[in-house]
């Protein structure tokens, strides 16, 4: 057995640290009498979350479910498929890859308003921004993964006289999975940021980004922090979810093996 830290160390320790930070934050704000508009105490943020659960829920559905996750799904599938195509056809590697590279360098603050003009104010334009943002990390990581097999492994398939499709499904795709999941982990975080920021450039009267920008204007800082808390929690859970699937799919990888 490898030395796995106990459950207490793995969950209890970070939880304890988090609670300590919250307690110190509360004491700091109350003790120094910090104005609410500068930094609300955790208790006030919690009160805002309880008070506005309905609004937070509507915003969450709009931004996370519709904007971020739809965009992540479409972008990830598109990046993956593009990687397979580029890998197969050298013509595309020379032609498409530089273009994808170029698109990846586009600043999100420039892309977002254009997407709003193209796809309207609602979540579709936010999903489009997310697609643009996550496409490239998935594409590049999948391509790197498809190139990750060594010569002996490919020679082995050759001695079996395996077809391209067989080599792909039985060797190269499984070998690429650790790379694909690296891309997915990067993309999961990017998707949330993209969907929130895109709402600054036009949205219906709901959504986490919309709420943050309007509440800042109304000095409703506790509500801003409530949205931040929800988004941070969502990002952590989303990332953790990807890590769980990764552990399940790439259990064989040296970084994932536990014990014997």
């Amino acid at each position, binding site marked *: 057995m490898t030395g796995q830290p106990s459950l207490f160390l793995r969950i209890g320790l970070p939880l304890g640290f988090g609670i300590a930070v919250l307690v110190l934050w509360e004491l700091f704000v109350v003790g120094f009498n910090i104005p609410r508009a500068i930094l609300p105490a955790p208790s006030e943020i919690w009160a805002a979350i309880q008070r506005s659960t309905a609004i937070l829920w509507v915003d969450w559905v709009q931004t996370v479910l519709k904007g971020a996750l739809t965009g992540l799904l479409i972008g990830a599938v598109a990046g993956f498929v593009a990687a397979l195509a580029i890998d197969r056809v050298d013509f595309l590697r020379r032609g498409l890859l530089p273009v994808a590279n170029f698109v990846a360098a586009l600043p999100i603050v420039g892309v977002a308003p254009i997407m709003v003009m193209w796809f309207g104010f609602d979540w579709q334009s936010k999903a489009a921004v997310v697609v643009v943002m996550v496409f490239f990390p998935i594409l590049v990581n999948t391509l790197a993964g498809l190139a990750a097999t060594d010569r*002996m*492994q490919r*020679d*082995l*398939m*050759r*001695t*079996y*006289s*395996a077809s391209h499709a*067989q080599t792909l499904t*039985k*060797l190269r795709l*499984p070998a690429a999975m650790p790379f694909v999941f690296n891309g997915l982990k990067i993309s999961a975080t990017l998707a949330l940021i993209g969907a929130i920021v895109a709402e600054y450039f036009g949205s219906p009267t709901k959504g986490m980004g919309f709420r943050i920008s309007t509440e800042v204007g109304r000095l409703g800082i506790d509500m801003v922090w409530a949205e931040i808390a929800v988004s941070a929690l969502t990002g952590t859970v989303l990332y953790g979810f990807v890590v769980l699937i990764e552990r399940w799919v*790439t*259990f*064989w*990888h*040296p970084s994932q*093996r536990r014990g*014997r």
Partner: protein
Amino acid sequence: MNRSVISASDLSLTFQTNDGPVHALKDVSLDIHKGDFVSFIGPSGCGKTTFLRVMADLEHPTGGSITVNGVSAAEARRNRAYGYVFQAAGLYPWRTIGGNIRLPLEIMGYSKADQAERVARVLELVELDGFEKKFPWQLSGGMQQRASIARALAFDADILLMDEPFGALDEIVRDHLNEQLLALWRRTEKTIAFVTHSIPEAVYLSTKIVVMSPRPGRISDVIDSPLPKERPLEIRDTPEFIEIAHRVRDGLRAGHGYDD
């Protein structure tokens, strides 16, 4: 009975490198008969691995001709005429031992029932029964190499090409695997081409020893072994064995000693 299984005549292979052409093989002619156990021995750079790879259609000769089972090496590969065992086991870590042995069977389209029956049979042949559901990284190096031999035996190829399969293993494990390999060869009556850099290994295993020398890679001696098919490990202490070993060593020296 004395049918020629692999036949090379005036085989040459020149690699073009930045430092000019490298003659990996020059005018190599050799006949391997059905049921032979042929070892290729020589210093690094003598072309023994290249020769094996040419038989397997993993390298293409630049001169001369080679036939395997009476057809070109490329056609023999497409007919799945041989099993190839590499220097490293090269098992896929995402597949169990059983899954790895099943790999060529899946590619070649054997039925599910046939696959299961064959996996069980070859696992027993290499004394790995009971390890079918283990993953490669849960096994020792010697066991992994045995699994890779089982993988090469799983389908009906009459020829076994082995490229220093035991080179990375310690001597005790190697002795044991050599014994097992001989027993397996007697039982299956396969034709085996075996690359090694160990004189005792070559003499112990082979019915025919091909001594090669480098720059350019060529055959300097072919020794037909008078040793019986039945060979206990103690045979290595007999005068006949030592005499053949001497002749191999002389052959190696003659082809070597002028520049290093």
